[in-house]
């Protein structure tokens, strides 16, 4: 499934603890994922799991949520899956504020296909398709907030207890919730950029993160901001649709 030391298992662990803490009936949980190493989590979890096409998980989940509003749906995506090919579905799910819980396993690279650049590969870093350095990258939090998400939060795989809590809070937000889980790919990104082994990459996160509450600017001294970046209620898409069409004669 995953390479030795891969952080995807850590995020999956967080997700499982969060589900446990939330105490939701597992038959009311659905996991929808795209294509990528991270998305393979879906196939290994004992829920109703839907492993879709690359980049389209949120669009599949939108259809599912509309007809099954009672489900708690986690949409598991890689950074490439969610923000490269899947970028359009991401911004529109966000705009609609549909009650989906997007968990982005951001390892800054395309893991599954072997280390190509993603829109989250830090600018200038190397990838097999960016041998001379990567393009400018997105800040997922900014994109989520500007497009309408009502909950946006980030934690690294070093901050697992925080990650557990953020996933929980995301579920409790009735609307589109984005949790960016900064994980790492020792095999692809790590090796190419000489970041050391899994333990070293985890420790790098420890040393280069800062709680967002402590920042005045979002990119505080080049550190990664972790914690809740945005949380503001707004009417949820399916509820709104139901409300608007309620009076329509049968």
């Amino acid at each position, binding site marked *: 499934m995953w390479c030795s030391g891969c952080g995807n298992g850590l995020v999956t662990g967080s997700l499982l603890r969060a589900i446990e803490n939330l105490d939701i009936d597992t038959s009311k949980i659905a996991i929808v994922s795209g294509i990528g190493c991270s998305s393979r989590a879906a196939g290994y979890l004992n829920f109703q799991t839907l492993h879709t096409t690359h980049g389209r998980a949120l669009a599949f989940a939108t*259809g599912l949520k509309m007809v099954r509003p009672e489900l708690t749906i986690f949409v598991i995506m890689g950074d490439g899956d969610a923000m490269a090919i899947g970028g359009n579905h991401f911004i529109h799910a966000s705009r609609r504020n549909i009650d989906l819980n997007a968990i982005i396993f951001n390892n800054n690279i395309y893991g599954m296909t072997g280390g190509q650049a993603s829109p989250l590969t830090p600018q200038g870093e190397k990838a097999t398709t960016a041998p001379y350095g990567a393009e400018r990258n997105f800040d997922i939090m900014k994109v989520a907030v500007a497009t309408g998400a009502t909950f946006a939060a980030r934690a690294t795989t070093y901050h697992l207890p925080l990650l557990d809590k953020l996933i929980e809070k995301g579920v409790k937000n009735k609307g589109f919730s984005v949790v960016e889980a900064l994980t790492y790919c020792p095999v692809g990104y790590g090796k190419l950029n000489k970041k050391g082994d899994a333990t070293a990459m985890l420790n790098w996160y420890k040393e280069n993160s800062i709680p967002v509450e402590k920042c005045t600017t979002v990119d505080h001294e080049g550190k990664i901001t972790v914690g809740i970046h945005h949380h503001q209620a707004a009417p949820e898409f399916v509820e709104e649709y139901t409300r608007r069409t309620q009076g329509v004669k*049968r």
Partner: protein
Amino acid sequence: MGQIEKTRLFQGNEACVAGAIAAGANFYAGYPITPSTEIAELAARKLPETGGKFIQMEDEIGSMAAVIGASIGGAKSFTATSGPGFSLKQENIGYAMMAEIPCVIVNVQRLGPSTGIATAPAQGDIMQARWGTHGDHPVIAFAPSSVRETFDLTVKAFNLSEKLRQPVFILLDEIVGHMRENIHIPHQDELEIINREKPLPDQPYKPYDEEKEVSPLASFGEGFSYNITGLVHDEYGFPTTDSEKTKKLLSRLQRKIDNHLEEIILTEEFGMDDASLVVVSYGCTARSVRQAVKMARKNGLPVGFFRTATIWPFPYEKISAFADKTKTLLVPEMNMGQIFGEVERAVHGQARVVGLNRFDGEMITPDEILQKILEVI
């Protein structure tokens, strides 16, 4: 069509929505595109009236994805589009084929390739419906010739889709989609409606049972834990790369269609007994052909009319069955000769196959067909 029953004026696209709702459709996801847009607009208005839901997605790819997602939630879902959107949907159509998710996809054909002429009719996406997505799998596609048939075949499309866990295409064209005819719409209780089989509760559940042609499909939310994927998968839906399992899966997908050819293939014919020339047609072109063949027969020419409402699976056997008794088969199409090739295959050299093709955005007229009949008979 009985004259006793009151008729109502319906547009083809409208009949499609009416058929879908009659078949139990309760979810539509789509993206507007001429000449299919009326289907989206009507679905937006009508579905909520019967408790269904409509969403306009950000694009056609998302539409196809949402249609599949909704079906997995238990809905009878559909979408409509035209050429450019049909091209975009192909990847996810392949997903639905592989994962065996019921749904109905309507393509109201317009002139291509590319943006072509958005408002001009064509029958140019016939082969694309068969081969548009990568990899091998069978497809089911209907091409109605009239407004009433659009209603009927839409109902049938949903039924087959549910029964066989297979996406089903309806290949309308701009003519049939946009024309209005006065038709009788059957009462709901005159219709046979098929719903997908559900697994028995508290029983071990195999969503892709190798022993079965089609396995029951549990809706998400009903408490069955299983996996759905577009990867090659085992009987429980989990990915595998085992070659034996791969072969079994893909063979079963083919078999489930092959075993139901009689139920799927709908054709219509007249004047075949003495025909030395048979005109083979489908969709809107069949309307001109019908008129032309009638004119020809009035003039004493031994001409037969063979129309197929089912494009895929193609009625190879039926055509091959009359090919040796016939000298010539004439295949008029609003494309460069797509079904022509299939007729050639069916005929196996036993008769001459002649095409009559227009790809300029205009319908083939009965006169053109008659003239061609006179020329090649």
